[in-house]
């Protein structure tokens, strides 16, 4: 591949692939994702300032670039940033959800990460959870935590932990209702939640560090720091 075509280097497959969930569940995920995204899209289009569009697009490109495994976990292995909470913290819940959704779609159609039929479920877990739970959680934490850069960064980090763990929980529930694989729920839940508790901590740490570093250089770029209310 050459020329102007983006080269997408992939880490591990984290998104739900085709065939993992039953058809009705995938369809249900599509319906929920469609409804949530219709809302996010409408709100994003109306609340957007004109210059937010290139910023949102660049934020998506940033998330794609960070898809390569960049976060050290232990020698030789690395996780990568999911970035949903980071996106809503920087762009607000509506535009953040739009950006993460398009990154998920691009990964599924172009990089083979995540199934085409599981797109709905993946969008619910990765884009709508940060927008509808992670963002309010950040605002809530901001009220509790001391004001200032460190407080804002910690709030974003805690929001990220919550989003990731909740997405893992949601995945486990989706699996319990409609998994096609026949592994006992307890085994699955322990494996998924155990793994994602660790992933969530890393995500929270890195999100907080990125937000803190950003606040030092360009505090105006962090949406949650700009507006106290939703």
């Amino acid at each position: 591949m050459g020329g102007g075509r983006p080269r997408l280097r992939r880490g591990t497959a984290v998104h739900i692939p085709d065939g993992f969930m039953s058809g009705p569940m995938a369809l249900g995920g599509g319906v929920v994702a469609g409804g949530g995204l219709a809302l996010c899209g409408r709100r994003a289009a109306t609340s957007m300032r004109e210059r937010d569009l290139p910023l949102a697009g660049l934020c998506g490109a940033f998330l794609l670039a960070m898809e390569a495994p960049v976060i050290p976990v232990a020698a030789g292995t690395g996780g990568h940033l999911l970035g949903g909470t980071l996106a809503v913290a920087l762009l607000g819940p509506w535009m953040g959800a739009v950006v993460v959704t398009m990154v998920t779609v691009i990964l599924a159609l172009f990089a083979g990460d995540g199934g085409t039929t599981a797109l709905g479920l993946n969008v619910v877990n990765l884009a709508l959870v940060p927008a509808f739970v992670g963002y309010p959680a950040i605002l809530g934490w901001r009220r509790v935590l001391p004001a200032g850069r460190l407080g804002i960064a910690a709030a974003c980090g805690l929001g990220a932990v919550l989003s990731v763990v909740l997405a893992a929980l949601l995945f486990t529930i989706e699996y319990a209702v409609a998994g096609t694989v026949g592994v006992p729920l307890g085994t699955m839940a322990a494996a998924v939640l155990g793994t994602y508790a660790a992933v969530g901590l890393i995500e929270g740490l890195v999100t907080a560090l990125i937000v803190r570093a950003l606040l030092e250089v360009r505090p105006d770029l962090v949406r949650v720091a700009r507006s106290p209310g939703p």
Partner: protein
Amino acid sequence: MPADTPVHRLPAHCKVAATGLFVLAAASAPREALWVYALDGAMLIALAAVARVPPLTLLRRLTVEIPFLAFVVLLPFAASGPRVAVLGLPVSRLGALAALAIACKATIGLLATSVLAATTPLPDIVEGLERLRVPRVFTAVAAFTVRYAEVLAGDFRRMRVARLCRGGDARWLWQARDVAVTAAALLVRSYERGERVYLAMVSRGFTGLAPVGLPERPAGAAAWAAALVLPAAAGAATLAAWGWPA
């Protein structure tokens, strides 16, 4: 993968829709119907041959699946249900069948999107989504994302090399600060690039949500018919496997 084959020439939105429908048909097949998976896989391989996609490219893209397959291999052992002996090991029949079906469906999904990606440039895929009535906010954001992903990935590589040259080789979690600072620096640069891009667009007359601009190239009935041949065949196979029409 630039080339000039009938598959490359099809309008992007026909290909995107066809890929979605094809994968949907394959994913809806009953798990016992191994012949459906074989048939779908054979159709995709034939399509890849017509599109002259090098087999190595397809294989390389299938490597995305490896961590996932490692999980699937464990299923026959972890799943409950009646046990059967395979090579002297007791495995769950249900788990083994499910593992096989999942691996097949995921592979078919990957092959289908690989052919799509190999025959359709990413900007065209975004344009195709817009033709399929995806709202403008989504496609406009995606258009920017696609246009700058490569630029930022290059930036990130260069920053990583620079950090390595100065001895910053983060290997452990407590060294995550290095990576986070690099990422934050990249994010600031990306945003500042976004602001410059915006100013450049405004100075060339940008007034709102219109950076994509579809060239008028609607697909004819012939293009749609050609694109929908394989999804229709896959759909028919799935229906037959479910025993319909009886």
